[in-house]
């Protein structure tokens, strides 16, 4: 009777990332396995895009999920959804790897925290299917000018600063700032329009 009473609760918990992370605190291997199966592809895709090398990308992905297993308490459910937190952690790790022993490492340590900061889903967002969301984001970014797209991708996937991008593209700093800001604002408006 006791087990039967518990069963629906366990099934409900299985559907939520936050509930699975809570189970990680009890060292529940099954919960870890479910989280890995749900999110390893998107994490690996991001890390591979940043590092451009499969073996190093797998090392970083292993490192990210191992940190999740060892330090699940670092994710705080009340501060935002799990996936943006995990992706930010993975991006930080991949960029740290990319910047190892470089001058840019110091700038990054100065301006970002060790743990991912809050990423709150805005009111206009709805729970879009992941594949549909990917199509929309790609279409919206594809509709930006080539310069805007290139500047945003250099910042996101290579971790370059405004002035580094300006130097690389031989463009004025103010122009690069505008490209990035206006591009992101257009992406935001586009996402608002689809909800």
């Amino acid at each position, binding site marked *: 009777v006791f*087990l039967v009473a518990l069963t629906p609760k366990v099934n409900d918990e299985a559907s939520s990332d936050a509930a699975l992370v809570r189970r990680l605190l009890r*060292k529940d*291997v*099954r919960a*870890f*396995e479910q989280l*890995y199966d749900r999110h*390893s*592809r*998107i994490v*690996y*895709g991001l890390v*591979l*895009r940043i590092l451009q090398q499969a073996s190093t*990308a*797998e090392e970083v*992905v*292993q490192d990210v*999920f*191992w940190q999740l*297993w060892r330090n699940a308490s670092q994710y705080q459910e009340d501060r*935002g959804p799990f*996936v*943006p937190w995990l*992706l*930010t952690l993975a*991006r930080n790790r991949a*960029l740290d790897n990319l910047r190892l022993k470089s001058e840019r490492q110091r*700038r*990054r340590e*100065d*301006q*970002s925290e060790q743990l991912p*900061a*809050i*990423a*709150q889903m*805005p009111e206009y*967002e709805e729970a879009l299917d992941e594949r549909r*969301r*990917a199509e929309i*984001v*790609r279409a919206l*970014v594809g509709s930006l000018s080539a310069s805007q797209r290139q500047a*945003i991708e250099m*910042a*996101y*996937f290579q*971790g*370059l*600063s*405004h*002035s580094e*991008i300006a130097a690389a593209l031989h463009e004025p700093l103010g122009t690069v700032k505008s490209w*990035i*800001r206006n591009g*992101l*604002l257009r*992406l*935001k408006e586009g996402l608002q329009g689809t909800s």
Partner: protein
Amino acid sequence: VSEHDQFREMIEGRALGSLDAPECAKLDAHLATSCAECAKALEEARWLVTQLVYLAPPAEPSEMLRARLLQKVRAEADAATPQQVARSQPAIAVWMWIGVAALVVFSAYSSWKAHQLERSVQSLTATLENQVAENKKMMESLVAAKHEAHILTDPHSKKFIIWPNDKQMPKLEATWHPEMGIYVTGWQVPMPAKNHVLQLWLIPKEPGSKPMPSRTFWPDSKGKVDLMVDNPPEEMAQTKALAITEEPEGGSAQPTSTPMWVGGVS
């Protein structure tokens, strides 16, 4: 453009991590003044930036990575369990120390019996330590026995035979409870070759899926197998069969030899 508007223009760059250090420091100082409007805008911009992940081409990590990571996680989870059991019995250690302390005080008070009492203390301490060790062992055995008994008697458990490929070998019995794990027993099981172990595998129902590695084990000196798997790597409903192979010490991510035993989960 007001000062506040200047800060709003930095929000997207901050979320993207592309602000140059001086601007970043200015914005952080502004955020530290508890500007709720900018703080909310930054949270939303961070969310927006995470959406850029979809620009990365889809890619699939290797199965080896999954197996390696899960093996590491399971090893740590298994290692953590006995420590938790030990920590749950602090009262035994406290009583032991109280007994030792009382005897030490008594020996000081009765100086003329110091030598004899010292021997008594040593003897009593050894006895207590033995008792504590025995008690701990019994508690662990009791917990394991209760767990096994629960699996064996619970109506939700499923029992099945794991048949040997070689008819000279003994069959093994398995009992699988959907919540509490798998219990495998057997008798007169021969020892694996030197530097080798026996390893349990879960064969998924899904066509084309690879066997899921589970625990490694040896029979005891009398050939008895008594294997408990608390966290099987796959659900019972998704598993077609259990198999046992001989593998190099430490186990393998995928089978390297023909199964010696196979039993259908039905």
